[in-house]
């Protein structure tokens, strides 16, 4: 069996380029059969959101994403794995989070990517605060019970 790949995990304020990340993971390789790439965006549903402020716990954010990534590598025979999560001010339409999984077969790549996102949402220490377009001070985004349910289905 091929050695377990080291996950690439980054927590950063800067934007990222999914195409570049994909090229970095696949460059020079001929053994990968499936890539699943997920990008989470900042969305504004009714024109009321100016931006999200993403607060994070430096050090733990990286460590926790790495723990989740290692768990994904335990569960699925992945050939590569990249996770990027941004913090700071992010406007509607901008990218927040990126997950890239590589495997020989698509089922493993799809399942691992879904698992990673479900677990990141409930375990990675990030918190979103809304900045309202009307200048009013916004609220902290509440955790959703659907997110807990989504994470629980992997138990």
């Amino acid at each position, binding site marked *: 069996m091929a050695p377990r790949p080291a996950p690439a995990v980054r927590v950063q304020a800067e934007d990222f380029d999914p195409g570049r990340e994909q090229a970095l993971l696949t460059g020079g390789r001929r053994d990968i059969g499936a890539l699943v790439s997920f990008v989470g965006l900042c969305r504004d549903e009714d024109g009321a959101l100016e931006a999200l402020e993403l607060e994070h716990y430096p050090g*733990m954010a990286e460590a926790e994403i790495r723990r989740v990534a290692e768990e994904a590598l335990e569960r699925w025979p992945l050939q590569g794995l990249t996770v990027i999560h941004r913090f700071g001010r992010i406007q509607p339409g901008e990218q927040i989070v990126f997950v890239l999984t590589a495997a020989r077969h698509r089922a493993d790549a799809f399942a691992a990517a879904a698992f990673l996102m479900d677990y990141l949402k409930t375990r990675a220490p*990030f918190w*979103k605060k809304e900045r309202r377009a009307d200048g009013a001070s916004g609220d902290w985004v509440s955790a959703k019970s659907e997110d807990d349910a989504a994470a629980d289905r992997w138990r």
Partner: protein
Amino acid sequence: MKALYFAWVRERIGLAEEEIEPPREVVTVRELIDWLSARDEGYAAAFANPATIRAALDKTHAAPDAPIGAAREIAFFPPMTGG
């Protein structure tokens, strides 16, 4: 030990971090929350609903009944909303 606060826990307490010296009888995360809550209104407001408080010891998630032990850092925060 160092205590860190995030999101609305930080806002209600009015501090991002501080050094704390809990007494010896404070053994678990839950007991530390009770001890902090008794300090003033800000702490009491931050910890008013324990079901909405998450904790980490040395950057690892910790349950309310987890012993603080020799941890050098404890963090308190709301349920996470990343992703």
